């Protein structure tokens, strides 16, 4: 029941998000606005346990939810196979470049921030690789 209550909360917030994006003609999808609304709504302690139950249920099988849209790829097989080799190369290389760039920049900035914190106050040390071994 707890999870069902939580699902009702999530659906209401998504609906509110859809309403807001439409009314204000925002370039974001409704569920993303719903996510921001959830961050506000969780200030009500009453909502926390139900939302936790529903979120754990939905997020533990998040992969399943991408399958129906994913199968839609078959509709575009003609174009995809026409440029198959080049598209595969472009998509793979750009994805790896994106992952590497994000990881590298974020890690460098986080370490710098942690070092600064440690210089000032006693910050808990949660990084695995403090000395930056290559």
């Amino acid at each position, binding site marked *: 029941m707890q999870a069902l209550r939580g699902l009702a909360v999530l659906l209401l917030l998504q609906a509110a998000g859809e309403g807001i994006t439409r009314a204000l003609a925002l370039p974001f999808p409704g569920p993303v606005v719903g996510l921001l609304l959830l961050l506000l709504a969780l200030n009500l302690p009453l909502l926390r346990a139900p939302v936790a139950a529903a979120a754990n249920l939905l997020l533990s099988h998040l992969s399943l939810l991408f399958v129906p849209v994913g199968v*839609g*790829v078959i509709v575009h097989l003609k174009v995809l196979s026409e440029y198959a080799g080049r598209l595969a190369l472009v998509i793979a290389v750009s994805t790896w470049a994106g992952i590497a760039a994000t990881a590298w920049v974020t890690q460098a900035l986080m370490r710098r921030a942690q070092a600064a914190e440690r210089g000032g106050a006693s910050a808990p040390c949660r990084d695995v690789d403090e000395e930056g071994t290559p």
Partner: protein
Amino acid sequence: MTDVVHLWTYLASSPLFGLTATVTTYVLAHALHERLGRAPWSNPVMLSVIVLGSVLLATGTPYPVYFAGAQFVHVLLGPAVVALGWPLWQRRAELRRRALPLAVGALVGGGVASGVAVGAGWALGLPTPILLSLAPKSVTAPVAVGIAERLAGVPALAAAFTLLTGVVGASSAKYLLDAMGVRDWAVRGFALGTASHGIGAARALSVHPEAGAYAAVGLGLQVLFASFLIPLVAALFR
């Protein structure tokens, strides 16, 4: 024999087919994924899409007929995206403290992913509508489709590129990040969510809760940045 044909005709055209096929295939794909020690290359989304796509093509079942049943799974994607707020809220203090590294990392990483895709595609001579559909490929599908529309790309292709990007990231990021020596779960998850949106986030969540939360942040920041910046940058090139 005709009874079997009748039964198949009935089943294949009823919404029950798409729903049953989706859930059953995913359960089997997930079981195989577990058997293989959750190896990233055995990504359950990828396996399910390959199996279901092959079945539809082999039986000549049109995608809309399949989707009539599969949509009951698909609608849950909305509340699931809202639910990504829960792991964020649990780590809100830590995230606020790290707001700057995360925002800069998302900008650089998203820019590199999109820039390399369009640049490499251009160098390889892909046509312009395809290049414009590649630009938003690291953003979650519904937003990528909207961006591609505004760029005069092909929305349906953008959705396909987004899916492929998610699968590539989810099935290979581990090896890349291991090779780079990135061991912090926060950074690993954030990179996966930034470059490979929801499918990457799903993988991150299944590996480690902290990685999952940071993947959700990465996905969210991509939505915010990409929906403003990609159309802006595209306008500069016109």
